[in-house]
């Protein structure tokens, strides 16, 4: 027994397939260029290992930070009504528009030693720029809008009917958030978190500008790929493929989990 979903016009499959191929073929082209005899050696070199491990750690930390910062912002954007709301939404979009390098400059101007907050931070004994913390901040800066916007969309589409019912049942706004809103938008939140993780994993420009490229501390996988490309394009391609595989594994794992919950 099943609902007869999937009632979309068949001809859509043609543009849909074109679209999928447009993304798939270039990735295939990369796979075809990989020098498989060297692949193992290239991706298990100490510098690759260090970069991969750093990327996974920082992208995970970024995802957590994005959820903590992004869920409240998405809720306020979706549920509150205030003047300047669309300005705030545009502001949130900006890090996606900015070339990441400019984002990195902005972060330097803020958290760097001579930046807006730099001196205050230095008094506290905190040196953020060029540390692993800086990598996380750079990734968060570019990844946060992904979570906020995707979650805001889900919140708006989901509507407030269940939240209203919950309120008449005596649930405080906090309870409503915890027991109704968040569970209902969980698929959207998971998608948003995956987006953030993905964006963080691929982040390059802001990281190299704000955090630099020190092995084991700030040189994430994309930076390592960039560096390798100068001297060893084969290694760069191999590492790119590693990045792709890691991303696919993470996405599939989370999606699988998500799908199980959705049933």
């Amino acid at each position: 027994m099943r609902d007869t979903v999937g009632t979309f016009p068949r001809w859509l499959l043609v543009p849909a397939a074109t679209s999928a191929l447009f993304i798939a073929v270039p990735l295939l082209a990369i796979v075809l260029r990989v020098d498989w005899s060297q692949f193992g050696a290239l991706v298990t070199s100490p510098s690759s290992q260090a970069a991969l491990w750093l990327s996974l750690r920082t992208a995970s930390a970024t995802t957590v930070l994005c959820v903590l910062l992004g869920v409240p912002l998405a809720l306020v954007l979706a549920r509150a009504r205030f003047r300047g709301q669309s300005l705030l939404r545009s502001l949130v979009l900006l890090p996606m528009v900015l070339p990441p390098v400019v984002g990195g400059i902005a972060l330097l101007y803020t958290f760097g030693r001579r930046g807006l907050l730099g001196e205050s931070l230095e008094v506290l004994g905190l040196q953020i720029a060029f540390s692993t913390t800086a990598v996380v901040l750079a990734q968060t800066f570019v990844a946060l809008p992904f979570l906020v916007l995707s979650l805001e969309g889900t919140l708006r589409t989901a509507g407030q009917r269940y939240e209203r019912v919950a309120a008449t049942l005596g649930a405080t706004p906090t309870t409503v958030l915890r027991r109704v809103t968040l569970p209902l938008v969980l698929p959207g939140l998971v998608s948003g978190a995956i987006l953030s993780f993905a964006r963080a994993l691929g982040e390059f420009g802001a990281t190299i500008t704000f955090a630099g490229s020190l092995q084991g501390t700030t040189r994430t996988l994309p930076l390592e790929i960039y560096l390798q490309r100068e001297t060893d394009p084969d290694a760069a391609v191999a590492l790119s493929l590693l990045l792709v595989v890691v991303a696919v594994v993470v996405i599939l794992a989370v999606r699988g989990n998500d799908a199980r919950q959705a049933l």
Partner: protein
Amino acid sequence: MTSATHPVGSGLTARIRSEERDVDLALTLATGETVAVLGPNGAGKSTLVTALAGLLRPDEASIRLDGTVLAGDGTWLPAHRRGVALLAQDALLFPHLDARENVAFGPRSAGVPRRAAREAAERWLHDLGVADLADRRPSELSGGQAQRVALARALATEPRLLLLDEPMAALDVSVAPEIRRLLRRVLADRTTILVTHDVLDALALADRVVVVEDGRVVEDGPTREVLTRPRSAFGARIAGLDLIAGSMRDGRLVTPDGLAIDGTPSEPLPDGTPTVAVVSPADVAVHLDAPGGSPRNTMSATITHLEPFGDHVLVRTDVADARITLASAAELDLSPGTRVHLVVKATAVALHPARPGAPGAS
């Protein structure tokens, strides 16, 4: 009116005004009182209850419940602090929770520990006859099943004011009497507003009936009065019943005047139960001499007046009203003052328990 019998400040006093929806309604409920709100589509019934629940903020609202100001004078208490539960036409069960957790939601929000809340939920599900659905997700329930669970969920919050917006619209007729009985038990000590299209609901559950038309209250009075002598167009279309109050003795209803009436009880009615007999005037026959035969109820009455009613005549008497055809009325030569025998079959008389202290039973 009825609030006079209750301490000052108890019960509900509300006024809701919305220009956009052309609604301006004032309403008073005594604590423990159940008021049925009737009215045609678009009259403003749902507007009233959503405003009372705190879900819709009208242009002007002044709501006071048991001494607490819910709205007015710049106050606007949010929904969750009102102690007002609302069950609307759509069940809106939380799709991510099973039936048990849906019902336990209210108690848990009120701070009841998880286990106790679940047990309470199971009791309510049991009461509503859906205990076996406790583990089902809302998507696995039929419309009617879902509505019963939603009813359990609203009741489980033990609200100070319960709002029911056509809660039985989706329930099938075979279970409606059962739910009605349950509701009566529950509403006995609860302040309730019941929006309904069903006169039987009003009869079985309400102390008072308010008829709303075009956003205004056009009738407001004891159930008995509104349903027997409706003054509004809408009231007349749906009501106009005979109601005879008394209490049970030897399986019959006995009025304070000593008149005994046979009828069909809607549920077991032990002796002493305050009861209302409900008869449609259409089922009351008028005889000049007492006839024999199966009809169990023959009541002597004096005609007070005769009202033409389409091609029928409404024969009003000191005991009950009868609706007969013009031809009959002419043949019997009826006029005010005529002594007649009103005859009604026991099977055409529905005996409903009346709520103690309810106007119908006074």
